[in-house]
């Protein structure tokens, strides 16, 4: 195989690849070897299975919501059933899917390998966070089985503390526990990144994936406890009647909003930063170029994390916060869009003159660019004080955050899963099917959520199960899109499972990517590296890779 030193367009021949005899998957056998494992890769797989489970549960709720909204009349379910539907949808998708999605699966799997170490700093705590996640999930399911909650994912007081007789406390417990799961994941990442880097792995040689996770972890560690205490106070208010948020006793419901959004705005960055990390890796690999402006992209992650703590009141513009404060928060909100834009521009420049190929992960990355850009830009609309008064609590918001969370994070997650699937399982996914699913999701997604922008702009409020008849056309489009989208998400589940057995054998480095994880066998050994690697090159150094490949060819052949 001959390659010139500047570009490598030929992917390696996979027919000669073989599955390594010993790897982390077959190192030990039996269910217990999984349930008691300390191996970050196995924990990542456990997480992958459990979040997929909750993703489809959340998906069922989404389907039911869209079905109800097919017609203007409330015909499928009663109004409080509908309230439960969107509440459970939000709680499951945000706390049990999006927050752990990329960090707990791909991050867990890859960060130690990318840093050249054998495991995360605290393997037992890592396992503990999976169990906490499961406990949180169980409580959520319990809340569901005992009749659901209908507060919305935002637990707005005094609605949640006084006016509802649903399972608020159970759901609150679920979120409290799941919160600690994400705190421990973040803590583990931060310590690992500071303390466990291989020799020569300086901060500015780390892949951008690691930088993004570092920033997200900081948010998890500093933001989540505020949610925890807020939730505790809500639960205490409900159960024993203390009066911190209760206006009849002198409490201030807006204090709840402040504390809740102090976490939940940073949380939206917990939900997007890891995805941005994935995109950096994919874009570089499939344009065979170093990420343009590496330092800027790295620091923009940190900047997002920092600014993320200064903008939360943009969720409260119409709730009676002071005008002056709202003005400040509005300006700061505009600022936070800047680092996101920096990333988008840098990725675009990475593509420029790259040797681009369109494997599935790259298709997902392109979907991310388009959808995240629209989502982020509409976020800026919403951050503008005057505009927000008109658009808040309408479907415009719903469209905005689905563009960033589904169009951004979910696409990045799927792109990442496809990208690292060969590494995680040792087998390729079927390329044609996966391309089909990427395109299907993209089309389905836009069909679902683009009409919602228009609906919101026209004034259709969110969280109602009936609407005036003139909105029906757009709602039908949206429901139709949701069906397509559902197919787009089901397909990967099927063919990825299929590929576990029948997929082509991947080989060590099917994409000719430069990360440390691609230089070891797939699936990796339990201890990742036979010998501690010494890093003497920058991240995304394709010349180094070409050189290395050449040397291997000459020594082996």
């Amino acid at each position, binding site marked *: 195989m001959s390659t010139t030193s500047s570009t490598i367009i030929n992917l390696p021949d996979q027919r000669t690849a073989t599955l390594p005899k010993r790897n982390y998957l077959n190192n030990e056998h039996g269910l217990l070897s999984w349930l008691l494992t300390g191996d970050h890769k196995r924990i990542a797989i456990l997480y992958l299975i459990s979040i997929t489970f909750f993703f489809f549960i959340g998906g069922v709720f989404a389907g039911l919501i869209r079905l109800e909204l097919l017609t203007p009349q409330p015909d499928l379910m009663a109004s409080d059933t509908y309230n439960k539907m969107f509440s459970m949808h939000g709680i499951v998708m945000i706390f049990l899917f999006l927050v752990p999605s990329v960090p707990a699966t791909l991050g867990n799997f890859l960060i130690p390998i990318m840093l050249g170490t054998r495991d995360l700093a605290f393997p037992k705590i890592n396992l503990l966070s999976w169990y906490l996640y499961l406990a949180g999930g169980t409580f959520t399911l319990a809340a569901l089985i005992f009749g659901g909650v209908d507060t919305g994912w935002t637990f707005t007081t005094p609605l949640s503390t006084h006016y509802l007789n649903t399972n608020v406390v159970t759901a609150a417990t679920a979120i409290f526990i799941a919160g600690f799961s994400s705190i421990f994941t973040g803590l583990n990442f931060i310590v690992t990144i500071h303390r466990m880097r291989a020799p020569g792995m300086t901060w500015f040689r780390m892949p951008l994936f690691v930088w993004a996770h570092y920033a997200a972890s900081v948010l998890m560690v500093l933001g989540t406890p505020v949610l925890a*205490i807020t939730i505790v106070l809500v639960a205490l208010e409900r159960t024993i009647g203390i009066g*911190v948020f209760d206006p009849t006793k002198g409490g201030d419901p807006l204090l709840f909003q402040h504390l809740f959004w*102090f976490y939940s705005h940073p949380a939206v960055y917990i939900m997007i930063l890891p995805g941005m990390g994935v995109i950096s890796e994919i874009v570089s690999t499939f344009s065979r170029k170093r990420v343009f402006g590496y330092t800027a992209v790295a620091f923009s992650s940190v900047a997002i994390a920092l600014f993320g703590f200064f903008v939360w009141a943009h969720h409260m513009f119409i709730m009676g916060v002071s005008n002056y404060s709202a003005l400040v928060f509005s300006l700061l909100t505009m600022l936070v869009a800047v680092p996101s834009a920096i990333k988008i521009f840098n990725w675009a420049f990475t593509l420029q003159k790259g040797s681009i190929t369109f494997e599935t992960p790259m298709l997902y990355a392109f979907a991310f660019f388009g959808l995240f850009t629209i989502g982020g830009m509409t976020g800026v609309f919403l951050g503008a004080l005057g505009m927000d008064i008109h658009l808040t609590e309408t479907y415009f918001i719903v469209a905005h955050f689905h563009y960033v969370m589904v169009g951004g994070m979910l696409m990045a997650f799927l792109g990442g899963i496809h990208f690292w699937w060969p590494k995680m399982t040792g087998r390729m996914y079927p390329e044609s099917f996966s391309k089909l699913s990427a395109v299907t999701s993209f089309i389905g997604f836009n069909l679902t959520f683009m009409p919602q922008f228009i609906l919101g702009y026209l004034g259709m409020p969110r969280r109602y199960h009936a609407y005036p008849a003139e909105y029906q056309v757009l709602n039908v489009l949206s429901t139709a899109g949701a069906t397509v989208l559902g197919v787009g998400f089901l397909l990967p589940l099927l063919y990825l499972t299929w590929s576990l057995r029948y997929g082509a054998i991947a080989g060590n480095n099917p994409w000719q990517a430069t990360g440390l994880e691609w230089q070891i066998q797939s699936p990796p050994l339990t201890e990742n590296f036979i010998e501690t690697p010494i890093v003497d090159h920058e991240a995304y150094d394709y010349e180094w890779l070409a050189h290395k490949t050449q040397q291997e060819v000459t020594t082996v052949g």
Partner: protein
Amino acid sequence: MDNAVVVTHPHTHETAVHEEHHHVALPQHRHHFETEEQQREAGTFGMWLFLLTEIMFFGGLFFAYLLYRNWYYDAFVSASNQLNVTLGAINTVILIGSGFFMALGVWAAEVRKRSLLVLFLVLTTVLGFAFLGIKYVEYHEKWEKHHIPGEHFDISEFVNPPIDAKTGKASEKPLAPDMAQKTQVFFSLYFAMTGMHAVHMIIGIVLLFWLTWRAYYGEFSSGYVAPIENFGLYWHFVDIVWLFLFPLLYLINRHPLK
């Protein structure tokens, strides 16, 4: 050879050789750390990150306190004066003492004195229990006075403060009924904050039992101090929270009618 990354490096390297004179390989050394030094520092750093989350956890409560104290200052004063300063001060001293013994415990582990370590851990635990005991007495008093927020909360004492036998004057400034209602906010915060603090103490005491047990069997007297050290950090953090709670809750304004 597939796993070799660029230049690889065997595990016996120069630094490991010089590590050897002051570090015996400990059984507690985890394989994924290069050295025990690295393991210890990772542990300390991890613990500090955890304490960061604790700062933010209590931070939410402290902000709530700050807000309502400014809004309902008079109610906060009257309600705060219902708390028993003597008990609060004694508890502060007890907690400082407990922290002191904990610090000595860390020292004992560092200089590898097993029985001293056990002694200090036991003293730490005993003072921890003493703190909780006094807290219980205080809570009980609140219960009897109907100062627990909720349905049975009683504001009459704040609207018509009892007359002081000696001076013949009201012992406290009477509050208008709507302001008196706000004492409930104070007590809500009082119970939330001291309650959260007490929960942390209880968790700490449980851990102390476990650590004392392990210390008794000599686990921490051979140079492996990390668990003691990290638990110490937690225990001191809980102390620090109390150092703020005490003046904020008990000493808002102790001289209203002077």
